[in-house]
């Protein structure tokens, strides 16, 4: 064995000088205890019950968290279509207008249409008259004049996201001209127009 470094030699020597001895009777005592079949209490190698329960609870919470995360953030990609009919969206006085929103993940609006439910089907169908249509970003169609009115509806689930927290903002000229329509999340500080 190679010796210790020079600066540790004195400590090594000191430690080599330390020796302990059990009491003289210990050997005979141990043999006697063994002869009488004495066992040493072993610490459990399995996990204590409380720890198992704790781990199970943690696993359950983790599972719930993952499911929630999946439902919120990783739900299947694809369009969600919401077709709500019938309200007076154009200010014409008749509850015959429907709103069709196609959104992605229930949040980003990909298409928004306001139609007049001509056939009374209470859903968008070929005979219906289109009053307003746009795709992704909110746009103003036509000229804005002084006789335009702003109408807001709140709160429903317009984007298919689940909670009824969306507001619908419509700017138009009654009875049937709509210049702009958008939805937004209705919170204390409203979200951006979508």
């Amino acid at each position, binding site marked *: 064995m190679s010796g210790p*470094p020079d600066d540790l030699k004195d400590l090594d020597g*000191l430690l080599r000088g330390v*020796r302990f001895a059990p009491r003289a009777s210990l*050997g005979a005592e141990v043999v006697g205890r063994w002869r009488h079949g004495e066992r040493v209490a072993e610490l459990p190698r399995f996990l204590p019950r409380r720890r198992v329960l704790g781990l199970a609870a943690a696993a359950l919470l983790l599972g719930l968290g993952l499911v929630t995360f999946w439902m919120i953030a990783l739900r299947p990609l694809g369009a969600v279509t919401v077709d709500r009919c019938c309200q007076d969206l154009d200010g014409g006085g008749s509850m015959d207008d429907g709103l069709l929103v196609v959104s992605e993940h229930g949040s980003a609006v990909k298409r928004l249409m306001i139609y007049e439910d001509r056939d009374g089907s209470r859903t968008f169908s070929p005979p219906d008259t289109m009053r307003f249509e746009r795709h992704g970003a909110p746009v103003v169609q036509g000229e804005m004049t002084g006789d335009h009115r702003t109408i807001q509806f709140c709160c429903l689930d317009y984007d298919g996201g689940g909670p009824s927290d969306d507001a619908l903002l419509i700017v138009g000229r009654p009875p049937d001209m709509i210049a702009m329509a958008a939805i937004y999340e209705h919170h204390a500080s409203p979200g951006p127009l979508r």
Partner: protein
Amino acid sequence: MLRTQLASPPPPALPATAEERCRVWYAAYGQAVYSYIRFHVSSADVADDVTADSFLKVFRAADRYDASRGEARIWVFGIARNTLRDHLRRERVRRHTSLGAMRDLVFDAPSPEERLLWEEQVGRLLLAVNELNANDREIVGLRYGSELDNAAIAAVLGIGESGVRTRLWRALSRLRTIMDCQPE
């Protein structure tokens, strides 16, 4: 230095009866196991108890010992390590070493004054050892308590001999630092 390093004793021949085997094993390794354990516990009484528990386990497992798989002392020290670990887990208290009389300290000092000085010196040494982390204390206990050589320590710990040396010198460096910070 009060004694010199002993050469590793040859392994004792195994007697036929279990009881005789147990006696031989205790005679051969009892003091080394005790001294190894003593580096980790606060008193001679505790070291006695843990040593006794270790050998009870050794004796109970004697039938399972297979000489072809390794030396008996390595096997005995493996059991002693586990028993000590269980004890320390059970205790979960900060170890402390009494600076009072050490009834189990072997000494060759001729006078009572020298004995007192030696006890005090060893007490301070053990206080510092108990400040080490578990790995450092383990290697110090095995090297200086059990008197195992590096090859045997390597077998007990399941590491290489060079690893034993490296760990030992690092542990001694940290021990030196701790002792330098001790109040006089």
